[in-house]
């Protein structure tokens, strides 16, 4: 056993004898105006307990009434994840915790709104989704004393502003096998959420929370070994680090004849490790039963059709559409879609621009956005370069100017003096130079390559830098032969 495997804290290359198995549970806060079961504002950052009422405080006698927009958003998300939308019932998940106003959480258990979907990663890989169900969020606890850490607190303060905020919990199948895929999954889910507008999906603000279920198995096997749930992951980077750490921790245990315990663990980003944590949700038995204060949801085929009809173009579809139009690999389109420039690209392709140039410029020269560039001006520019009317350097320059001013490429090229210089004009110039500098030309003809620069420099000066250096060299070489 190598030293790097024995110590999971050290960065090391992955041992191919093992395969990671990762499933992700992502809680998404829906961007509705009000909470799931009451009319209190669904708003982040207000003074404590100012967005509360008898229902979300769970006061004796209070009752829930479902927010119709939360249901609609949940179904939209389900369809965006290619799920089947089902009739659903709410259930009570019973356990005690101070941030739970009723000491049960209203969620969906046996019959969730959405099931059996998938996410397509930019690489083209499909990750199956088991379910995406609706549930209510809890309040927030602040631990006082002991540096804010729960284990050293002297007391705790509870704010119920967040209690009752609508959540959708998206549960993937345990079919990811690398931290890169896990990150790509979460990034793609975030992009889908932003595209549909059902959540602002900010990990750093808690409107998207990721828990990772991690286990390992010998490569080639189909077994599912003991997994650990890792919580407190607050960024994509932490997600990657936490998965890498945890998988290696499991391997180290197996390699030493031990095995990981099934438990919930807490990711400590600062220390770069996970710690065991018995979360209060590790109750053995939640005693689920159908929520008697709510009646079932029964979406109709028309409801679902309306959602499908109104669905905006999602990232995976956009990548596929561009890949088809440009006849390139799916992976070549990822950055374009990420930059929201696929519509521009498609428009340019339709206007006749060659795909290679379109993609190249988007990737290399439009990182800061299109500015005043349009599909037509973009197409014209790319075509000019492809036809040799502009050099690569010139094209980049003109593009930057179109982005800033919105003027057409031909106008800009003319203003900059980037007139098309064809070979015959250069031949004439070369003739003149050869006549003026016969000794230098003779040295070039004998093989002196240094003097080549002399002639190229003269031509560049004569054309104010607009000659294509490569073309000049080619013409000179052709004269010799």
């Amino acid at each position, binding site marked *: 056993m190598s030293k790097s495997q024995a110590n999971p804290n050290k960065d090391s290359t992955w041992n191919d004898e093992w395969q990671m198995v990762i499933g992700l549970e992502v809680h998404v806060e829906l961007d509705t*105006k009000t909470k799931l079961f009451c009319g209190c504002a669904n708003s982040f950052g207000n003074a404590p307990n100012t967005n509360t009422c008898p229902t979300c405080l769970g*006061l004796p006698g209070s009752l829930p*009434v479902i*927010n119709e927009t939360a249901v609609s958003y949940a179904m939209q998300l389900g369809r965006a994840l290619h799920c089947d939308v089902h009739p659903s*019932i709410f259930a009570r998940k019973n356990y005690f915790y101070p941030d739970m106003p009723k000491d049960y959480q209203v969620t969906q258990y046996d019959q969730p709104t959405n099931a059996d979907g998938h996410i397509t990663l930019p690489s083209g890989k499909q990750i199956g989704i088991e379910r995406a169900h609706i549930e209510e969020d809890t309040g927030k606890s602040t631990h006082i004393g002991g540096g804010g850490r*729960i284990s050293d607190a002297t007391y705790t303060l509870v704010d119920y502003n967040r209690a009752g905020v609508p959540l959708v919990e998206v549960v993937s199948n345990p079919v990811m096998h690398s931290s890169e895929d896990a990150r790509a999954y979460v990034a793609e889910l975030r992009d889908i959420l932003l595209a549909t507008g059902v959540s602002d999906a900010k990990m750093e603000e808690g409107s998207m929370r990721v828990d990772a279920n991690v286990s390992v198995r010998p490569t080639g096997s189909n077994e599912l070994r003991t997994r650990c749930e890792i919580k407190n992951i607050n960024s994509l980077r932490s997600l990657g680090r936490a998965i890498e750490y945890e998988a290696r921790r499991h391997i180290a245990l197996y390699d030493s004849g031990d095995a990981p315990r099934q438990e919930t663990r807490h990711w400590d980003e600062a220390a770069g490790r996970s710690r065991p944590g018995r979360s*209060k949700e590790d109750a053995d038995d939640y005693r689920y039963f159908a929520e008697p204060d*709510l009646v079932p949801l029964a979406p109709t085929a028309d409801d679902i059709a309306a959602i499908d009809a109104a669905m905006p173009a999602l990232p995976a579809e956009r990548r596929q559409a561009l890949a088809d139009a440009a006849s390139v690999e799916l992976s070549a389109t990822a950055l374009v879609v990420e930059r929201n420039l696929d519509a521009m690209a498609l428009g340019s392709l339709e206007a006749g621009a060659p795909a290679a140039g379109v993609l190249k410029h988007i990737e290399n020269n439009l990182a800061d956005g299109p500015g005043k560039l349009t599909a037509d001006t973009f197409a014209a520019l790319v075509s000019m370069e492809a036809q040799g009317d502009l050099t690569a350097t010139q094209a980049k320059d003109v593009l930057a100017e179109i982005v800033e001013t919105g003027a057409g490429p031909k106008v800009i090229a003319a203003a900059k003096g980037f007139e098309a210089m064809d070979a015959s004009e250069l031949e004439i110039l070369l003739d003149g130079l050869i006549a003026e500098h016969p000794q230098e030309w003779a040295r070039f003809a004998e093989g002196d390559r240094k003097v080549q620069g002399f002639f190229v420099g003269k031509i560049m000066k004569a054309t104010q830098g607009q000659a294509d250096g490569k073309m000049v060299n080619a013409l000179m070489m052709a004269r010799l032969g």
Partner: protein
Amino acid sequence: MFTSQMSAILDHVAELQTLELNDVEPMSHPMPLTNVVRPDVVRPSLAPADFLSSAPAAEADMFKVPPVLGEER
């Protein structure tokens, strides 16, 4: 005392098993209602003073409790 009372009650309840229940749907709602929803419109909330004054302990407009056992969530 509780145990023997619970047993007696559960014996009574055990009679439920004598009925033929295989093809019967459970009734969780007496009324066959579905799709009861409300519009996503903000309604007035309570003010913290409305309920914190009757809280067992409060500080800074939050409910104050002894330390919570277990890990952060």
